[in-house]
């Protein structure tokens, strides 16, 4: 199977789903998520905005900006899962023990377009990060192959700005309205254009966070939570 996001789509499974406290088909363990999220709250106090824009039941791809080592997709997935009371997966689990299986229990997916496509097709909510940057106001490149998964499955793509500080608890997530491709394309240009559009939209959302912008190298210091509590 290639990882270009082109996978054959099938009707969704209708078999009785495992009980809510059981490990699901992807290996996500709600109990492990509950324990880790409980501990993670000691580190982050997350303020979530725009969650009413996220589909309550249907699949969607949420794209967040990530500052290096900030684990933004993970705390975004946890915060969304709590707010929406539904499982949320995130992209970017390693495939080596012990981290790989542990992150899988928390809802992590491999950064493969076919995995994201299948999860979205199953009606899951998936959070993916843009390429990490050192500056909290910059948005890295958005992997168009993963955006292609949303295009292939016809699911919504929502941009989300995140901000957190390394030495403070405050973290903020602001989800924007769903984006659709500006033009109808027959080929992979649709996902490329949508990825660029998502990146620009996240930058606009980040601008809305306010915070100090001196225009000097001080802005590069990752101390600001930019509107975080």
């Amino acid at each position, binding site marked *: *199977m290639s990882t270009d996001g082109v996978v054959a789509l*099938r009707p969704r*499974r209708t078999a009785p789903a*495992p009980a809510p406290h*059981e490990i699901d*088909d*992807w290996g996500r363990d709600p109990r492990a998520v509950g324990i880790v999220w409980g501990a993670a709250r000691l580190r982050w106090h997350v303020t979530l905005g725009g969650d009413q824009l996220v589909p309550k039941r249907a699949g969607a791809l949420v794209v967040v900006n990530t500052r290096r080592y900030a684990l933004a997709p993970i705390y975004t997935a946890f915060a969304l899962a709590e707010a929406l009371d539904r499982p949320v997966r995130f992209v970017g689990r390693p495939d080596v023990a012990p981290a790989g299986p542990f992150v899988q229990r928390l809802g992590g997916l*491999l950064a493969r377009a076919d995995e994201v496509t299948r999860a979205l097709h199953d009606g899951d909510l998936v959070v993916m990060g843009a390429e990490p940057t050192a500056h909290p106001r910059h948005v890295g490149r958005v992997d168009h192959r993963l955006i292609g998964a949303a295009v292939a499955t016809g699911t919504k793509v929502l941009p989300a700005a995140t901000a957190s500080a390394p030495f403070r608890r405050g973290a903020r997530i602001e989800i924007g309205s769903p984006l659709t491709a500006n033009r109808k394309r027959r080929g992979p240009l649709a996902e490329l254009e949508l990825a660029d559009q998502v990146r620009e939209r996240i930058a606009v959302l980040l601008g809305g966070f306010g915070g100090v912008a001196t225009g000097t190298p001080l802005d590069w210091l990752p101390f600001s939570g930019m509107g975080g509590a």
Partner: protein
Amino acid sequence: MATGRRVLVSGMGGELGSLVASLLEDEPWVEALEGIDADPPRRHLRRAVFHRVVPGQHDRIVDLITRFDPHVVVHIAVWEPYSRANPDQARYLTDDAATSVLGAAAECPSLESIVVRSGLEIYGRRRGAPTRPDEDDRADPTSGYGEMVAGIEDTANRLAQRIGVAAGALRLATVIGPHVPSPLGRLLRMPAVPFSVLADPPFALLRERDAAAAFVAAARVRLDGPVNVVAPGAMTALRAIRRGRRIPVPMVGPEWRFAAQIAYLAGAPIPEHVVEMFHRGRLADGSRLPQVLGIEPQWTTSEIIDDLYSWPSIIHRPARVPAPGMVA
């Protein structure tokens, strides 16, 4: 579905094979049912004709199958390593059965369809492999059992292409059931069970009744191509051990070899593909099953584990004839 079909089941003596045969007996489209195996069937069959054939009797197998001239061949004669034979024997018996049964089936003029047993082990668990592979993913086995089932699928596909019949493969998750000889089932029921403390990844299972239903449906619809058959949900070794109130024995890596030796002496040898599952997990996308075969597994993986631990170790059956001097 055309009626009046003759169906041959190889491996009819095993728990899964005899269950498939008993379900096929109730199918209205099945006119005649015959089976071969080295051991007699595990349950009473009303219509099926059973032939006990010792492995290696190629001439007899060819003679029986060509005389029966089946329309559908259901090939279940697959020996999972350490289920009923050690890995070397299992590989030999499986390859031998696949070659002789499928080879004989190719000589039958009425043959329309072949359904073979395969396993999720065919996808392998190499680093970077998809978490939930589907049937379009490349077969890339990383264990001996995976190579065995890949060999069966390859034999069936080449044969089907050559003679122009349908060839379906059911890629089963690890089959667990009260009387199914399963190395995983035996291991999990031991008083103390090793698990990989650094990984403990999730895996999915399958109940033998769901597997049997899939074989019957595959034979009915003339399945062409592979289909994953996997129960919903997943389980990790540690969670299974805790559900069964067994003693978890954490393993880091090198001591697995030692644990395997201890388990071997205790009567629950651990084959390579089970060790791989405990380290790398084994899940699969089963969404094609309802689309192609129109059925869905009725047991979730958690229910299968709970059921595994509810089987009695010893079943006491009262004597049918009272002992002399005893009042019935």
